[in-house]
Each structure stands twice: as structure tokens, then as C-alpha cells.
């Protein structure tokens, strides 16, 4: 490690009207180093990297690149100086080919026309050099998310790359793809590129990074060497509380069987058998693409059920439309609150009102809506999910991810449901809010409801569940409970290809 940092920030501060987004943060990155930025949503990570990437200008403090004070006018300017950012939201055009995307804005020309042949050839060479097995002629929308990520990274290699900023690159990747990405990151390290790595997955840090900087509420809490810290300590630094304060202890009820699924089959799911019981939390784990979400979307009638039966309290609901399934007492919370969960342009009370109007909790069955009752109940629910008063009349698009998720949770209290299915209940939610959401799940289960938690976050499923289904390749590869629910066991069944049933 050279003595002089590759890039450095000195007392970097970003002041928005009324909000101090970043408070005098010192950060440094050496060449050939992976430096993790860690913190809750809203802790200032995005603000910090947006200033390094040239998307934002600091209010105070400075950025030092190669020992010299640097100022970036734009993202393009920062890229010219060797800093490239792969943001969470991809900047790829889905209808263009991989080669066209890689060379977007840098197209090789032959006279006044684009030289497509050279472009394809160079794209092919770049992908080959980086070890990505992607056809440069493929249309981008046909690629998997991981492959798209690789294309995004390839785009960074036009110029003289010094600093690569990866914003949650593994959030949607499978373990195999993550391995591949890390190999690549290690190669970049060997080439002397400095990498700023943002991720929530603590398990990953020790595999690639040497140092971690933890941010909380816009301020730097500290920078530690990976070798000298551990998961619990990092979480504590990030949240300001210990890890066992995050996951509550949930009492298991011995309730009746509510939902029975027998031989369920659909595209991507083969013969699933399982039961859901009242007073119990059923965890569902599996890799991305294992079908864990699809299984329950089929139960809800969102995907066509090809074969098998689904019974709620003995009543066959296999082919019922989603609305009737909800009325039977099963409620499903979408993993994508923006696309499927909330009406973003409306405030939280309007979002909650939809469920109250449709459900049987208030106002009876008449065609007229009793708005006074609906609004009162919406306020009660908002209190219950601890949505701050000041946020209730703002369009939910203006709320943070955590508060949006609270509104989404609120929707499941809008009708009388006996089974509540949480699909990725805390995706993109900070630790503080997570703890609050877990308490809601606890209260639901302990009040005798059946709760299903589908999650890609393994610690989350393991800590919350009384019983677990593990899915692999569309099969239920294991049903675990009690002492069998260990990380090794679960991971073993993640990759189970035989589809061994219970």
C-alpha cells in the first residue's frame, strides 16, 4: 500500500436546506485496496459517493485525487479523471445490444457513421479480457441482472480507470455470480485500481475488503481494519445497538393448520407440498431464482396454477382470483413496494384507505364509504406501525425506504387476515426500521396469525422463523425446524439439485 492515498476526502460536508446529509467526513482509498462503506439507508453513503462520482458538489471540504485537490463538474468529468461508478440503478438501455451499451456515447466512428464492426470487435475483446461470458450482440433486456451488472462494469473500462465505485453490486446476484464478481474485483485490485464498495452484506466484506468505514446519520463513526472487527461489532457501529436487539424472541403458538398446499405445480415450481399454521412463523429461504417468491405468488393467484390444490381452512382456493383469496384471509406483501405495493403519488392514508375500503374491518359491506371511520382507522394503523405524524400527509414517494415499508406493512392491517405473507419484508430498509418491522411481525404471530417470511436475507429468515422451507430450483429441498435450522444446513439445501423431499 502506497503512502499517498489514491483519493481522499477532507472534512467533506453536504448541507441541504434543513438537512446535514454529510458531516465533515474524512475518507481515504489507496490504490489496490477495497474499502467498504457501511451504514444504514440515509446514513450518507450515497451522498458521499455522489460527490466522488461528480454527480453532486460538496458544500464544504475537499476531494483530493492523487495528492491534488480535485473538483468534478459532472459525472462525465469524474469519469475522464478515472473515477467510475456503477450505481444500483443501471444506466443501460434495455433495447440496445451489449456492444451498443458499452460504447454508448463513445461510439467508434468511420467518417460520419458509427463503425458497428469495430464496436462489436472491441466490445468482444473487452468482455473477454474481463472474463465475462456475454455475447456483445445480445439485446440487453434478455440478459440476467447479473449479466447486466457485468455490462455496466465493462462500461467503466473505456478510460484510465483509477477508482471504481460499486454501489450494492451483489444485492440481486446469486452466490455463484457473486463469486465471479469477487474474482474480478480481486483482479482489479492486483492492477492497482482502488475500489469503494457499498454493501449491506457483512459476510462479504472479509472476502474482498481490507478496511471498512462506518457512517451513521451523515457522520463517520470510524474506519476499522476487517481483520480487527467482526459482524456484531460492525452492526453495533452502524445502528448504535447490539445485534440481539434487532431480532426479537418470538413465542411459537401451537395453532391449527390454516393453509394446505398439495402438489402445487407451475412454471418453475415442481410439486410443492406444505402447510401453514396459525401462531407460527414459516420462513422461506432460497437463492434468487429458486422459486421461493413464485411459490407464494402462485398461492395468491398471481401466477397461473398448473396443477395441485391450495386449501384455506379446508376450502379449495386453487383457482380463485387474487381478490377472493385475500377475502379468504390471506394477505401478501409484495417485495417491490414501488411497482406493486404503493401508489407513490398518494399520501400514506390514501394508500391504507384502499385496503380499509376493500376489507371488512370498517364501514360494513355497503357501497358507501364511511370516510370518517376509514380515516380514523388509517390513523390508528399509522400509529401502530410507528409512522411519524409529519410523514402521513406527504406522497409516499417522498418518504425514505424504511417509512415506505412501514406504510406497506400498514396495508396488511387494513383487512382481517389470518395468514400474512411477507415477501422480502425489509429490502432496502435500514436497521433501525427493521427492528421495528420485526416487532410488528412478532406481534402478528403471537396474536395467533400465521406469518410467512420469504427472504433472501438468510440471517433474517433464520432469526425470525419457527420452521423453514428451503427452495432450490423450484423444489422444496428441505423443511427444517428447531435445531436443524443452522446456516450450514440451509446452505446445503440451497444447492440441492435432487429436490429431495421430506
Amino acid at each position, binding site marked *: 500500500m502506497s503512502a499517498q492515498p489514491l483519493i481522499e476526502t477532507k472534512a467533506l460536508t*453536504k448541507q*441541504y*436546506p*434543513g*438537512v446535514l*446529509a454529510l458531516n465533515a467526513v474524512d475518507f481515504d482509498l489507496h490504490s489496490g485496496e477495497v474499502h467498504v462503506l457501511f451504514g444504514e439507508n*440515509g446514513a*450518507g453513503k*450515497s*451522498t458521499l459517493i*455522489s460527490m466522488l462520482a461528480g454527480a453532486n458538489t460538496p458544500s464544504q471540504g475537499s476531494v483530493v485525487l492523487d495528492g491534488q485537490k480535485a473538483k468534478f463538474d459532472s459525472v462525465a468529468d469524474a469519469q475522464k479523471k478515472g473515477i467510475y461508478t456503477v450505481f444500483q440503478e443501471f444506466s443501460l438501455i434495455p433495447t440496445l445490444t451489449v456492444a451498443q451499451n458499452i460504447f454508448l456515447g463513445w461510439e467508434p466512428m468511420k467518417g460520419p457513421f458509427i463503425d458497428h464492426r469495430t464496436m462489436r470487435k472491441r466490445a468482444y475483446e473487452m468482455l473477454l479480457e474481463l472474463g465475462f461470458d456475454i455475447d456483445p450482440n445480445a439485446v440487453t433486456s434478455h440478459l440476467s441482472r447479473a449479466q447486466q451488472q457485468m455490462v455496466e462494469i465493462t462500461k467503466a473500462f473505456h478510460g484510465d480507470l483509477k477508482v471504481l465505485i460499486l454501489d450494492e453490486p451483489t444485492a440481486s446476484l446469486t452466490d455463484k455470480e457473486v463469486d465471479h464478481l469477487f474474482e474480478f474485483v480481486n483482479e482489479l485490485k492486483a492492477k492497482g485500481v482502488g475500489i469503494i464498495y457499498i454493501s449491506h452484506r457483512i459476510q462479504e466484506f472479509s472476502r474482498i475488503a481490507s478496511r471498512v468505514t462506518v457512517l451513521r446519520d451523515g457522520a463517520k463513526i470510524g474506519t476499522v481494519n476487517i481483520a480487527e472487527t467482526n459482524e456484531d461489532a460492525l452492526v453495533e457501529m452502524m445502528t448504535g445497538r447490539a445485534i440481539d436487539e434487532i431480532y426479537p424472541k418470538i413465542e411459537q403458538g401451537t395453532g391449527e393448520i390454516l393453509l394446505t398446499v398439495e402438489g402445487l405445480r407451475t412454471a418453475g415450481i415442481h410439486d410443492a407440498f406444505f402447510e401453514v399454521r396459525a401462531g407460527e412463523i414459516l420462513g422461506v429461504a432460497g437463492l434468487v431464482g429458486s422459486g421461493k417468491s413464485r411459490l407464494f405468488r402462485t398461492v*395468491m393467484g*398471481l401466477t397461473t396454477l398448473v396443477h395441485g390444490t391450495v386449501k384455506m381452512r379446508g376450502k379449495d382456493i386453487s383457482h380463485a*382470483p*387474487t*381478490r377472493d383469496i*385475500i*377475502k379468504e384471509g390471506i394477505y*401478501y406483501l*409484495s417485495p417491490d413496494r414501488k*411497482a*406493486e*405495493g*404503493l*401508489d*407513490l*403519488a*398518494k399520501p400514506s392514508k*390514501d*394508500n391504507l*384507505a*384502499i*385496503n380499509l*375500503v*376493500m*376489507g371488512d374491518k370498517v364501514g360494513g359491506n355497503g*357501497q*358507501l*364509504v364511511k*370516510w370518517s371511520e376509514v380515516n380514523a382507522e388509517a390513523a390508528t394503523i399509522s400509529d401502530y406501525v410507528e409512522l411519524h405524524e409529519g410523514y402521513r400527509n*406527504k*406522497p409516499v*414517494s*417522498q418518504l*425514505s425506504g424504511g417509512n415506505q415499508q412501514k406504510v406497506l406493512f400498514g*396495508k396488511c392491517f*387494513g*383487512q382481517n387476515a389470518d395468514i400474512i405473507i411477507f415477501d422480502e419484508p425489509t429490502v432496502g430498509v435500514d436497521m433501525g426500521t427493521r427492528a421495528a418491522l420485526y416487532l410488528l411481525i412478532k406481534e402478528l404471530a403471537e396474536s395467533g396469525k400465521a406469518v410467512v417470511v420469504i427472504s433472501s436475507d438468510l440471517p433474517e429468515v433464520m432469526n425470525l422463523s419457527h420452521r423453514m422451507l428451503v427452495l432450490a430450483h423450484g423444489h422444496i429441498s428441505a423443511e427444517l425446524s428447531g435445531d436443524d435450522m443452522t446456516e450450514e444446513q440451509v446452505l446445503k439445501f440451497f444447492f440441492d439439485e435432487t429436490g429431495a423431499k421430506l
Partner: protein
Amino acid sequence: MTTEATKTGAFDPIRKIFIKVGVLPFFLVGALIIFTALSDKFLSLQNLVNVARQSVYLVLVSMGQMLVLISGGFDLSVGTSIALTSVVSALGMVWFAGIFPDAIWLAIAFGACMGFAAAISVGLINGVGVAYFEVSPFIMTLGVSSVGAGLALFLTGGVPVSGLPFAFGDTFGFGRLFGIPIPVIIAAICIIFMWLFMSRTRLGTQVYAVGGNIKAAHLSAINTKRTLMMAYVICALIASLTGLLLTARVESGEANLGSTIALESIAACVIAGVSLRGGIGRVENVVLGAFFIVLVQNGMNLAQVSSYMQMVLLGALLILAVIFDQMRYRMILSGN
């Protein structure tokens, strides 16, 4: 990083009004100033009463259009529903009156029912196409409007259907009850009905939910397809009612009635703050929006703007309103 910036300054109240109700108050004030300056007759009570009476038809159609816009689509075939209703109801009345010359009111009722049936089928076709086959509302209603206009012309051979019962025109075109024109009374009833429907019933709430986020609505136990169907059918039905009132006014069944009303009704809605993305809009504002469009047309007539130029200005007004709608939606989402 989200910022909850609080901007203050002289423009703050203007911004707040703009976000809350849209561009209508500003346009209304602008129009009043301009046309009062251009013509001293404009702001007279008699003229404004006149505008109110003329605006009945656009107010009605705009409420139907609003329903479809809130559901997340739009209906270009409202004009066709009007024309088809006019032609079919006129043919029905003339035919029935020819067989039973004494049962005039029965003939009127029969013709009206046929007109409604024709419009309901237009709405059903639109609804099925949009809800079940997921055709874009633009293409669906554009296609249907061509089909319907063609049928209306085919049925009449392009010649107006005359010989309607006098009582029809006398009552629904020019009649008065307690001194108030009958069309105004009918419009007022419709406004109250629509206001109650949109703000007090479960079905109305469902229309807002479907337009706001159709997937979220589906996951909240709403029958989204039926809701969309209903929006198109009610829209066609209100257009049909307007068609009957216009037929009574012109005292003949005409296939060219309502040719410009699709554009005018969309303009009225957008100016009144109905979002083209769906989910947002209020009945009372739409009534004002339609009133505003007719007011502008009236003002332009008084200022002796040629009807060709009026088309140009109306189109420009619509585009301007959409641009403001775009800005407003962004402001709502970002809070800035």
C-alpha cells in the same frame, strides 16, 4: 439521499396552489383578464349565464373523460359515442313514432334507450379491449372511434335524421323547469351523482386505486378488470346522455356531432388537474375546467377570433396544460 428541502419565498403560495389544484386557477385568472380587456361584453352577467348554459355538454363529457383518465387511460371515442347515440336514438324515435304516432313519449324513451345501448356497447368494447386484452387505451379508443363514426355515417348515409318528435326538442333542448334550462338541471344531477360516486363509494375509490397503481390495487383485493370496464362504460354512458341532449338541441340525428369534444374534454380535465398518469383528479375541478374551456371559446368569439385560429389556440392550450401537469406530477413526487 433524499432531502426534505423547505423552500420559502414569494412564490411559495403559488407553488402550493399549483401542486394542490393544478394550473386551472392561473389560466382562469389569465383568461378573465385578457377577455375582459378585449371585450366589454365578456364579463356581463348575461354572457356568463350564457356560457354556463353552453358548457353543460362539455361538463358532462368531461366528467366521463375524467373517470377514464383517473383509471389510468383515456377515451378518444367520446365524440363517437355522442354521434352514434344521436343517430341511433333519432332513427329509433322516428321509426317508433311512425308505427305508434300517438305514443310520443314512448317513442322518445325507446329512441333514448337505443341510443344508450349503442353507447354502452362502445364502452364495453373499449373496456374489454383495455382491461382484458390490454390494448393501449390510445389505440383502442382511437380504433373504436373510427368504427363508431363510420357506423353512424353508414346508418344515415351522411344525411341528418330529421322528423323527431317536437316534444323531444322542446323538452330536452329548450325546455325549462322553474326557469332553469332542463339540460342544466340534468347536468347538475349528474355532477352531484359523479361527485358522490367518486368521493363516497367503494367503486369510486377503486377507480382512484387502479389508476394510481394497478398492481397494488390488484394486491388489495380490487377487481381491476371490472373497475376499468366500468370506467369506460360509464364514460360512454355520460357521453351518450350528452348526445341525447345535443340531438334535442339540434332537433335531428347527426353523425358529425361531438367531433371536437374528445380533445376539448381531455383539455378540460388536464387543465383541472386530472393527471394523465391516472389516480388523481376531482369532479368539482373538472366542472370548472370544462367551464373554463367554454369560457375561452366564448371569449374568443366575442373578440372575433376566427374559428380556425380557435382550433390552433385550443390545441396549444392542451399542450401547455399537459406540460404543466408533467411539472406538477414531478413536484408531487419529489416534494420540491
